[in-house]
């Protein structure tokens, strides 16, 4: 059996290079890979492209990466009212940002995961979001072409992983995590608990092990507000 379990957070992110394109799970305080983010930041990574629904809550979640000036470009749907460090860097032109509607953000990730080359949607037609995108009419509806969004790495949070990498999520901490797991070349998950193979009912697996490359157990770091 191929070993996916890493004994430390630092080891799990050790080979992520400067400039990498990285997805970060989480929404509204739930399901953020906070321990992995801390390890990534600690490692002194630079110039990353971050793909994340928001841009952190003050120092919390992705905030630390902006505080430390480690992000060059971010793709987000809702940077958020408390993303102070992002906002400062953005105002100074130190970080660029692509704003994407939240559902389209997921759908572009899923398209990448599913090997699709693009899709047409009515979302964003006639708005700033459509700028520079191909527009056409299909079945009488104006729509724009959205392209798949892939990442080199996904950093996600799950509740349990079995030793093969099958994942379950707790409550609404699921959010972006299963989609990002599918859309990145290498998916690294921090979990509350690692359980023996066979402990998760095959029908209750949310992210099948094929999408999970590294597992690390971590607890206790959360930013609630």
């Amino acid at each position, binding site marked *: 059996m191929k070993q996916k379990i890493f004994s430390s957070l630092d080891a799990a992110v050790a080979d992520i290079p400067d400039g990498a394109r990285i997805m970060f799970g989480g929404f509204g305080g739930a399901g953020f890979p906070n321990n992995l983010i801390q390890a990534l930041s600690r490692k002194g990574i630079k110039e990353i492209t971050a793909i994340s629904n928001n841009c952190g809550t003050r120092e919390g979640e992705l905030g630390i990466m902006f505080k430390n000036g480690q992000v060059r470009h971010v793709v987000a749907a809702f940077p958020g009212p408390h993303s102070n460090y992002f906002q400062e860097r953005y*105002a100074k032109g130190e970080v660029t940002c692509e704003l994407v509607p939240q559902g389209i953000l997921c759908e572009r990730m899923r398209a990448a995961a599913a090997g699709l080359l693009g899709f047409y949607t009515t979302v964003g037609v006639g*708005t700033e*979001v459509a700028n520079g995108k191909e527009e056409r009419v299909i079945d009488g509806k104006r729509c724009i072409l959205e392209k798949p969004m892939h990442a080199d790495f996904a950093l996600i949070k799950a509740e349990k992983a079995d030793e093969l990498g099958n994942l379950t999520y707790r409550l609404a901490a699921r959010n972006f995590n299963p989609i990002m797991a599918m859309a990145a070349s290498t998916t690294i998950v921090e979990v509350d608990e690692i359980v023996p193979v066979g402990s998760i009912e095959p029908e209750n697996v949310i992210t099948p092990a094929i999408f999970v490359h590294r597992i690390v157990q971590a607890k206790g770091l959360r930013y609630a507000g």
Partner: protein
Amino acid sequence: MPDKPRLSREQIAQRAARELSDGAYVNLGWGIPNLIADYLPKGITVYFHSENGILGMGRRAKPGEEDYDLVDAMKVPVTLIPGASFFNQADAHLMTRGGHLDVAVLGGFQVSEKGDLANWKIPGSKGIGNIGGAMDISAGAKNLIVCMEHNTKDGAPKIVKQCSYPLTGIECVNTIITDLAVIDVTKNGLVLREAAPGWSPEEVQAKTEAKLQVRGRVPEINLG
């Protein structure tokens, strides 16, 4: 001469709640829409959808009851009703975009006479703005209600001929509920369905840039 009294934010929410029918699947956006759950008509069950991946949200969590893995799209800890379910964010927006929700209620900065909605960014505000799920929701809603004040704090009309704010979606709003009126967006323009108590159609029109059509007698807003 000061204006006549208008509906409160709570009363706007109360009126909007009457648009929801038993068994409906409903998404409530930021602002006034988020107050609607408190005013559901007696005897009906509505299933609230949250675009972070919940169907069957219940009331907000009481102090001590908060679980920060169970928050709504506004980051507020909530509870569940029996029969709730969780799903990923792609499926959550498959529901919004695919027309599966019966009703979506969003806040608004401006609505145009064609039903264009602007609700994500104030021109000239600093920063890049926050779209969130509003564009997916407005594009896909079978029935999109916008709840907002009829006028800005400066008295400028928010129901306009053409939006000057950055758009969220075009030709997407079905009904506008404000502190002065209930207005339907039809193919032939805006139709004044109800007016706030004490307000005549002409007085509502005076607070509105877009032309409001009146078809027969306009009843008072009924809070149910």
